[in-house]
């Protein structure tokens, strides 16, 4: 039975991590396309509109892959996590069903209009369609975060006689205090991804001296969004989310920060490797007392370390949790530096000629994907060993009747299929980028 559980976990982890590579661009790009369409309406400059058309083409490819890799997610709650679904369906079934009814219909209906209806809808109508697609994707994100927030910090439920949980306070579920920072942090993370992708394509055009006018638009809009996004993703949203974890899951917080012993004036670990045998950090590089200050705004405040909690409450994989969190924070810091530098050069009117800086912008686009993935790994590894924090262990959530052999069959199938989809996706996006914005079609 442990084999089956492991396969269920690997399959969910793999399919969700792969899936989320696409919605983060969808949600971020949805906003940037609205910005481009808005700039077009405001400045009456056709280049902005043509840029929006170009990005709509990439958006459509990305959206299609996001949709098809998203379908298995909702199904897997039932197929692989039947016990969890029976236990918690009376609560999270609400948010998942609302996602379908309120977000998916909105998104899919207006995407068709946005992609095929520019002529029919007129300028403002087409702008409105873009706004609706953006709203749909951000609403979808809200319901998913509300679902995850409940698993991280369950509330607003009552238990039935058979032990299953049912929602008892609708607005309590939708306004879970966990949601606010996690949602804003996550959505701005998506904007950072889209901003880096747009900047990267712009830098590519400038460096290779083609579509230069569009390259400048992409770099300008991308750096603007990237600078604002990189700042907001760290403060206040990232900071707020860490405080959520420190308040509601203190043992997770200790694991993330690599703090083994409780202490007054705890240090902020920058680099180091958790040594789970000796229960200490190897090769530590840290800033003394900073963790206490960041968490409680007092240099000598006490922060609880892992040792303050019984071992069976510790996150299952502390080193991976610690690395995920530090990779996310480290990359986030680098993003701020890159975007601040690019914005400074842009302000000095030197960026378009500074090839070294454009090279950095060109090559930086994979890292926000890594940071977003690492962020989600932090959230999910931090929740372990719980499936619903404090209420249900992951071990007890899997389907009772699905054997390891059947699970492996579908896991291998997903691996093969997603590999092919990845190759096709890259091929099509590279092809669009090569065709360039001039050839992205006209109004139709």
């Amino acid at each position: 039975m442990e084999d089956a559980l492991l396969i269920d976990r690997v399959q969910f982890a793999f399919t969700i991590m792969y899936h989320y590579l696409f919605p983060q661009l969808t949600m971020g790009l949805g906003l940037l396309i609205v910005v481009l369409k808005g700039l077009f309406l405001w400045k009456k400059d056709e280049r902005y509109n043509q840029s929006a058309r170009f990005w709509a083409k990439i958006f459509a490819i990305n959206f299609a892959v996001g949709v098809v890799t998203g379908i298995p997610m909702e199904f897997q709650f039932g197929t692989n996590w039947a016990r969890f679904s029976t236990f918690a369906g009376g609560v999270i079934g609400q948010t998942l069903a609302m996602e379908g009814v309120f977000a998916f219909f909105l998104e899919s209906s207006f995407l068709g209009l946005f992609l095929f209806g520019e002529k029919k809808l007129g300028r403002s109508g087409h702008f409105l369609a873009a706004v609706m697609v953006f709203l749909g994707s951000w609403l979808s994100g809200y319901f998913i975060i509300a679902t995850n927030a409940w698993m991280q910090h369950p509330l607003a439920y009552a238990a039935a006689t058979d032990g299953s949980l049912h929602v008892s306070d609708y607005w309590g579920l939708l306004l879970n205090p966990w949601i606010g920072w996690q949602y804003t942090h996550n959505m701005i993370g998506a904007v950072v991804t889209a901003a880096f992708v747009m900047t990267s394509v712009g830098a590519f055009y400038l460096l290779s001296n083609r579509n230069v006018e569009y390259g400048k638009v992409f770099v300008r809009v991308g750096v603007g969004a990237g600078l604002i996004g990189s700042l907001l993703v760290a403060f206040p949203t990232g900071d707020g989310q860490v405080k959520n974890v420190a308040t509601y899951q203190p043992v997770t917080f200790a694991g993330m920060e690599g703090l083994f012993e409780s202490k007054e004036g705890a240090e902020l670990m920058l680099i180091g490797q958790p040594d789970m045998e000796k229960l200490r950090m190897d090769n530590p590089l840290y800033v003394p007392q900073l963790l206490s200050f960041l968490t409680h705004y007092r240099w000598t405040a006490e922060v609880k370390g892992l040792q303050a909690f019984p071992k069976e409450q510790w996150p299952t994989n502390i080193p991976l949790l610690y690395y995920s969190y530090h990779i996310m924070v480290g990359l986030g810091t680098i993003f701020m530096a890159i975007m601040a530098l690019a914005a400074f050069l842009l302000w000095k009117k030197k960026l378009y000629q500074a090839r070294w800086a454009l090279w950095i912008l060109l090559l930086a686009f994979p890292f926000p994907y890594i940071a977003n993935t690492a962020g989600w790994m932090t959230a999910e590894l931090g929740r372990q060993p719980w499936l619903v924090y404090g209420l249900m262990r992951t071990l007890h959530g899997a389907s009772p009747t699905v054997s390891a052999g059947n699970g492996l069959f579908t896991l291998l199938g997903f691996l093969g299929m997603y590999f092919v989809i990845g190759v096709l996706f890259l091929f099509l996006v590279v092809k669009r980028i090569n065709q360039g914005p001039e050839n992205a079609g006209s109004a139709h």
Partner: protein
Amino acid sequence: METLWFVLVSFMLTMYVVLDGFDLGAGIIHLYAAKTDVERRLILNAIGPVWDGNEVWILAAGGTLYFAFPLVYASSFSGFYLPLIMILWLLMSRGLSIEFRHQVDNPLWRNFWDVMFSLSSGLLVIFLGAALGNVIRGVPLSKDGYFFEPLWTTFTVVPESGILDWYTVIFGLVALFTLTVHGSSYVAMKTEGDVQTRSRFAAGKAWWGVMATTIAGITTTFALRPELLNNFTKHYWGLLFPLAALLGLSGVWYHFRKGQDTRMFLSSTLFILAMLGGTAFALYPNLLTSSTDPSASLTIHNTAAQPYGLGVGLSWWIVGMVLVSGYFIYVYRSFRGKVALPTEDAGY
């Protein structure tokens, strides 16, 4: 309240079959009805702006089943593990076929996705039909509400059933023929010329298949599960479903002969509504019937979520459906009429 949610979940699944049904059916006849690249783009343009929205119905229906009857969702999804994951793979292949085909202007690329589109549409319909067959036939539920069925055993219904046996294969074929008629009449309604002629022809031929398989399906069902007649004998108004189905089926033939595509499509819609409505009526109050021990069946009474959740669910569901109707009416109005040939790289 449980009964209401039984009706609403059935309604959403029926909407899925009616709406996604026509673009699935268009996929089934795709290779036959459209021979050239231009013709195939016509068919894809006819479903292009709406197929994704249509498919959302099955996601929304799944989500609604999840919150209204959590145990049924958990039990059926894990019990039908392999076929459901295969349905997912088919849904994925099909979605990619529609969205990727037009991205590259190369005959090999386009041929590949055309075949993929048609194949995955056909297989999906057969799988979904067989799934319905399984729900009607019942599954070997244990006392705790779970079961697991292999893909096939010996293809006989007794003593050991599989996802695929001769009974569920009949339902796979009912679905295949029904949605071929449905999709063909939709394509005929949206196109002109050769594509329209071939679609009408396909609808006429498939109609005979609907007749034959439906009769086979109904007679074997009542032979296998005579208790499914009970609701009809208890509540005579339930006989409206078979009557409406009959009206729909003869309407398809009548309007086919007259060459009235829109009316043929509406008749086919009536047939699907009546057949699925009748099935839900006959199964009530069972959501998943146990084939081994009737007391282990999952009914609306032993699986429904708590009244508070069902109550708030109803309020947002109504708001949501008003919005959804708005979107659908707006989108279908925007793309009404015959599809025109796309210019340059616009559309599909």
